[in-house]
């Protein structure tokens, strides 16, 4: 089972910029490495990550083979109102993981 971790501040003030930290389990196999029998291990990476804040897209990132295994990504956003941050990671071999996190805006 794939694990995704989201770290948000416990509460933020309206208009405040806060950091969103994400971590997801994934081997990020580059597709450039040779296996035990000399054949290339096929590529298996997360290709894209998206974050929406109450349905509005606030961040999108295209990943490549050059992103380390178990991708850590952090970005910022402005606290507009209390609600839900939705995250989606998609990649090779039909990889798709969704996660949500609550944010409380005081």
């Amino acid at each position: 089972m794939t694990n995704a971790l989201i770290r948000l501040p416990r509460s933020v003030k309206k208009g405040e910029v806060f950091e969103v930290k994400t971590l997801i389990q994934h081997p990020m196999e580059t597709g450039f490495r040779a296996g035990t029998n000399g054949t290339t291990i096929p590529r298996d990476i997360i290709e894209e990550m998206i974050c929406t804040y109450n349905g509005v897209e606030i961040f999108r990132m295209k990943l490549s083979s050059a992103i380390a295994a178990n991708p850590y990504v952090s970005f910022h956003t402005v606290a507009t109102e209390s609600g839900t941050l939705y995250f989606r990671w998609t990649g090779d071999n039909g990889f798709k993981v969704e996660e949500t996190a609550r944010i409380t805006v005081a």
Partner: protein
Amino acid sequence: MDQALTRRRFLARSGAGAAGAALVSLMPFAPAEAAPDDLARAIKEVVGSARLNTGKVTLDIAPLVENGNTVPMKVMVESPMTAKDHVKAIHVFNEKNPQPYVLNATLGPRAGRAAIATHIKLRESQKIVAVAEFSDGTFWTAGADVIVTIAACVEDLLQ
């Protein structure tokens, strides 16, 4: 005579074996290396005919990295991040990994601050380049040279 033949045979065989092993270990990488030209080409694809200015972008990465498999990296861009004036995208490129792209992040005024962080892989000591695309169509860049002591994707070469 017999002994010489055996020795010769042995040498020939071991020589061929060594060459074969070297070939196998180099094969997956040799043709796939991103040359500095690829770096320039990849940047050109993003920037197009626009001018690439130096400044506004801070690329925070350790100058000496022990393990190329996981290298923490931060990109910060000076911008008010308003609807009129914000960073639209941050692109990161590398010089000597098998392909020149690292990431491209799409931001907007909702980001509040144009700062992202992640962990990357580096195959060897090389140059990293971050390019920020602003809403007014300008491009700003910063680069960093990184020395890597243990490269990423080296484990399969040691088998």
